[in-house]
């Protein structure tokens, strides 16, 4: 579904790219973990496939269409959903409104459907009493689950997450990864998770490690 071709990126020095000539393929219904030491360029890579930045070299294709062709804003709106380590949510809204807002912006199939958003949140363990509470008064784990619920509500087939469990304890981490697995397998989406926790990576269908400017497949 998603394919990179000769992908390369550097910040200042062209002679010292973070990664170079990357050719990878990510499939629907599968989850991928990207491991690597700090500062190797995992987040940078994720920002490229999330359409938040343009590659210096090579190209990214979604179903054989170049991101340039699709247009980055368009791509972000319809094709990719992102979960950050923190600050995922609109802090002046309830979980419910966060989902409804995202669905409205991305013009999702269920846009405006409160009942649907409610069911998704309930499914992820956000009880009715939390639905209309300001998200700032939710725990870190609950907030992260709302962010995941948001990706489930939107129609994007690609879900990318950057250290989504970085701020969570063991139980919440396990819960969150289970949800990502459900997104991949039940919703038949393509999930790409950047993490530095081997336990998290091990639960994904595929694992890659970014080292020496290359992605090495571990499984």
């Amino acid at each position, binding site marked *: 579904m998603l394919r990179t071709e000769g992908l390369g990126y550097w910040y200042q020095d062209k002679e010292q790219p973070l990664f170079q000539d990357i050719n990878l393929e990510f499939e629907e219904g599968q989850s991928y973990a990207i491991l690597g030491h700090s500062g190797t360029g995992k*987040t*940078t890579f*994720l*920002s490229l496939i*999330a359409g*938040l*930045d343009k590659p210096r070299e090579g190209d990214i294709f979604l179903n054989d269409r170049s991101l340039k062709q699709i247009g980055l*804003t*368009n*791509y*972000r*709106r*319809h094709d990719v959903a*992102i979960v*950050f380590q923190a*600050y*995922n*949510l*609109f*802090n*002046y*809204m309830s979980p419910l*409104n966060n989902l409804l*807002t*995202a669905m*409205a*912006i*991305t013009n999702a199939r269920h846009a405006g459907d409160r009942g649907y958003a409610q069911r998704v949140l309930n499914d992820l363990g956000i009880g009715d009493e939390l639905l209309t509470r*300001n998200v700032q008064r939710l725990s870190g784990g609950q907030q992260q689950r709302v962010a995941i619920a948001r990706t489930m509500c939107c129609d994007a087939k690609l879900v990318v997450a*950057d250290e989504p469990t970085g701020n969570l304890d063991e139980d919440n981490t396990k819960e969150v990864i289970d949800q990502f697995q459900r997104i991949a397998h039940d919703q038949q989406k393509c999930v790409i998770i950047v993490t530095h926790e081997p336990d998290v990576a091990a639960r994904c269908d595929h694992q890659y490690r970014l080292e020496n400017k290359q992605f090495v497949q571990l499984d």
Partner: protein
Amino acid sequence: MNFFKRAWLNVWAKKGRSVLLILVSSAILMFVLAGLLIRSAAVKATETAKTDAGATMTLSANRQAAFKKMQSSSSSSSSKSSRPKLTLTPVKLSDAKRIAKLSNIKSYNVTSSTTANAKSYETVSTSTGMSDSSGGGPGGMKSTSSSSGDTQINGVTATALTTDFTDNQSKITKGRGIKASDQGTNNVVIEKDLASQNNLTVGDTMTIKETTGSKSTRKVKVVGIYKASSTSSVSAGPMSTDPANTIYASYTLANTIKGSKYTGTADSVTFNVTNPAKASATKKAGNKLISSKYALSTDDASYQAIKASMDSVEGFANKIVWLVAIAGTIILALIVILMIRERRFEIGVLLSLGEARWKIVAQFFTEMLMVIVVALAIAGVGGQFVGNQLGSQLVSQSTTTQTSSSRTSGQPGGSGQPGGGSGGMRGGAGGPGSTTNSTKTKNPDLEITVSAVDLAELGGFGLAITFLSIMIASGGILRLEPKKVLIS
């Protein structure tokens, strides 16, 4: 229009911040409104002054030209013994009629003055002497000059058109004033004191004796009695003993008394100008119609004084409006810039969801708009108060600076009554006018009221301030890279 809902949720959820923004915006808008109110009040006051203060234009002999002619004739003539004579050409009424046709002339009054001697009556003498009793000694018969009589005859087109009557220095108390229809008649209007001293009333006749030519006597008919202000010194002729000895008649009667060669002439003609603002243009047009022997002079001092003072108020108000608007825009822009920095994660998430940047700017704009609408309501109430304070301050300041330059007797409002000791009246009507230069021009109070137009204009300013400050601040939104949010 999802950004609309987001804006509302944000303003509602962050009440503290919203209230703070409302307070800041209210303060800014209040000062803008105060400036707008003062400005529109000044414009209105100037408009009122235009119609009320009035202005006149006077056609008379050109003294300067006559004086020059006299000098040149005296230097050319070798005989030093004969003193050169200053000859002032009487104004021709045909000229006056042509000038009266100019568009800015409302009406005109012909003045022709002369003197005569009392024949069938006693003149009033100034009460410092013997003639206290109405029995009447030979008071006042001081003048035995052949050319000057003891009775001043003011020939006019209509008394209602003379400044003495328009300024309320003189008032008709019985009968009627001289009207245009009195031309060619011997009708006169006499002063109250003269009437009571001689037991004269409306309908009576009295006899005067001409001072020139055959010195014949002439019967005149009293059609009205007027009361002159005691302070009035306008009508004082060179030999006149008391203002009460001034009688008003049609200018044709004065001309007849002066002699046949004065027919169709006048000492001067005063034109009432419709729009004082165009007085000097009218004067220019009028000068083209007459020969250099005559001169036109305008008296719009009263209007000019008010206009100058209101112009300065208006200028100041304009400066307030623009300074506050610019300062307000900068202040709001700075606040919005800080707000945007604080909200960069939210903006990053919106961008990552694929929201268009202009819709993010629109959300911020909508939020500010909601704040401004509330602030407008608050400012509408508060601006009237601030405007009143500033307005009275400004008027009192500009009045003191303008008084020195004014020398006028007419007042807008026109209801000023002489007497009572104090000149100032509410509503800006003048006190007793006098021809001395010490007359104070009292400016009309600025009437500060919030009108729908003011509020609409304030709304426009509010909208512009909001729009500009968001535009200035939105550079931050438009430049923000969603990736920065991700990596930090």
